[in-house]
């Protein structure tokens, strides 16, 4: 492969992320790591361990569980919690549906993605979290490219994109009023490849769905949807068994599969280098409109 330069991880990014994680620990009373079970949040957990070693990671993990997860992700989450000894807080979207705080979407393209925000904000409030560390990266999406490292959210979790605190040099200003909270993004400056290279160098375990496997899928407009109880199938749609993997870990109802035979981390990296589609291009939640991400962030999505 000629693009070997794309397989190097710039160590400076790790130093920067560790600095940010320590700032979060120092500036907030009750920070937590938002943990989705995806590669970015797995990377965050590793960075947090490094930031405080030989001390303990001073954050619990928060998982917003839509109930539409890949079972492999949940199994991975529970294993990681057992191995690290970190506290796990789970916010169930189902609880908000049952309490009629949110109404589930219906139809062929229904997803619980948008409902997560209510559960996230309720969980933040219930546990009095004043900061949530997330694995979002600026290269993922154009609205995220504008996000601060310390992103202040108001009492309603809202992001005011046009009125963000300036961030200069290494200064991170986490002063907030009671009720407000801050989303902290330590790997803001990492790209998808940086994360994969880091996972390879650090030998991090990741959920099995990132690797190629066989699974039933439905093909819709050229997109491979993982077939599960969570999606509607039209009578004329055919379930096929295909060899696929996932490039991001979201809900089963909004994450497209990728035809792939990559079974090692090296093969995944080769594939990411060679691809002509961006990472969020496999996220059906982002395809809804041009400003889908900004609109969701504005109301409290992370």
């Amino acid at each position: 492969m000629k693009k070997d330069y794309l397989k190097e991880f710039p160590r400076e990014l790790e130093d920067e992320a560790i600095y940010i994680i320590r700032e979060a620990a120092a500036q907030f009373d009750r920070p937590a790591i938002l943990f989705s079970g995806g590669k970015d949040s797995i990377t965050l957990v590793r960075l947090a361990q490094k930031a405080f070693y030989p001390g303990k990671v001073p954050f619990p993990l928060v998982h917003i569980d839509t109930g539409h997860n890949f079972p492999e992700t949940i199994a991975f989450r529970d294993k990681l919690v057992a191995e690290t000894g970190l506290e796990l807080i789970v916010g169930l979207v189902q609880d908000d549906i049952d309490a009629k705080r949110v109404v589930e979407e219906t139809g062929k393209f229904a997803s619980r993605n948008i409902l997560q925000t209510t559960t996230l904000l309720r969980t933040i409030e219930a546990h009095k979290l004043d900061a949530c560390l997330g694995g979002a990266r600026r290269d993922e999406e154009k609205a995220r490219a504008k996000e601060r490292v310390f992103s202040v959210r108001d009492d309603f979790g809202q992001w005011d994109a046009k009125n963000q605190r300036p961030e200069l040099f290494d200064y991170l200003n986490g002063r907030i009023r009671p009720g407000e909270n801050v989303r902290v993004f330590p790997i803001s400056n990492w790209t998808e490849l940086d994360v994969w290279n880091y996972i390879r160098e650090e030998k991090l375990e990741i959920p099995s769905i990132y690797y190629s496997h066989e699974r039933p899928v439905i093909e819709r407009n050229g997109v491979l949807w993982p077939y599960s109880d969570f999606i509607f199938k039209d009578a004329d749609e055919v379930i096929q068994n295909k060899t696929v993997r996932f490039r991001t870990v979201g809900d089963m109802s909004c994450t497209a599969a990728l035809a792939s035979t990559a079974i090692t981390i090296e093969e995944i990296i080769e594939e990411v280098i060679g691809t002509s589609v961006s990472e969020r291009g496999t996220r059906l939640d982002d395809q809804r409109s041009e400003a889908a991400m900004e609109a969701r962030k504005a109301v409290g999505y992370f």
Partner: protein
Amino acid sequence: MDVFRIATAGSVDDGKSTLIGRLLYETNSITTDKLEAIERASQRKGIDFLDLSLLTDGLVAEREQGITIDVAHIYFNTPRRKFIIADSPGHVEYTRNMITGASRAQTSVILVDARKGIIEQTHRHYFIANLLRIPYVIVCVNKMDLVSYAEDVFVKIKNDFLELSASLPNTQQQIVVIPVSSLHGDNLTTRSQNMAWFTDEPLLTLLESLPVPAARGSFRMPVQLAIRPRNESHHDYRGYAGRISSGKISVGDVVTVLPSGRSSKVTGIHKNGIEQASAVDRESVIITIADDIDISRGDMLLRTGEEPLLKAEHTAFICWMDSQPLDTVKSYLLQHGTQRIKAKVIRIEFVQDTATQQQLEAASVKMNEIAQVKLKTAKPLPADAYAENPANGTFILIDEFTNNTVAVGFFE
């Protein structure tokens, strides 16, 4: 692999977005789905070319108005380096965003329209690059295609710019002027066929070959927090975590803790339990010392004998960033390193007109204005002059009531 940080500034019509778009395109850094999204958005806006500004102007308001409001971060790799571009708006009313974008840059790329030459905005961009002492300034004289690739047009603009740079105080910057056409790709990634008279490196080759500037100044490390595990295997362990802002530290060095002034010997430097003999600027480490002295967040570790003068009165340039103007009656929180203390601006020396370089008398400093002021801090600070140690020579002001970051400052 190096990380190289670039700041660009400019408005829609000077071709800045096209220039960045082209760098991404020619280094294979845009994926097809992103390109297609831009194509769709361009069509919806009723334009028949690929509007590459849509790549960087990520907010709805920016796309609607066709302007850059906030700093966007853009990433691309070449075999030599990982590049991070902080792309910021160029208008005077966004000076604060420009400074934000430039604050960590190693190179400032300034665009000049070949048809217009040096204009007010060029003065402003360069003033900021100069104030921040960004090590390299690359001036791209753009739209050379619209002046028939004429050498004399370029030479005149180049000379005008060098004259401007000679009139500003910080002359250690390395300045390079390149004639380009971002629309046609002249002198961006490959040497232009249309300007045989220009024999220097094209922009990307230059960006790849500029040496990463060494951080100036002696060892300084603001302490972020103390690590005290109190577990069985590390019962008496006490380490101090921080990111080294400048200089180098080795095991065996004697350090002083400021403000307490107590000294001790460095017994260990480690990352994730892995010991290293020394560490340099930008590394996040944990340092252990021989003696049990009280160190906590806000303190600074320095090498004994290299301490800066502790001062409670300071002269500084500030850029005001809040819609509420500076109030000299009120006190603010000043953050320097990891320390936050009360501070007050006791005198405004002058407000700087960044376009004409005039120094104006003023009773206050408004948003986007740059001023020289005298400050008083509640306690003496271990700060360096920005010119000598940029990493330890800056501060921010925070409004205690709104919690906003209202200003950034540079100690004289």
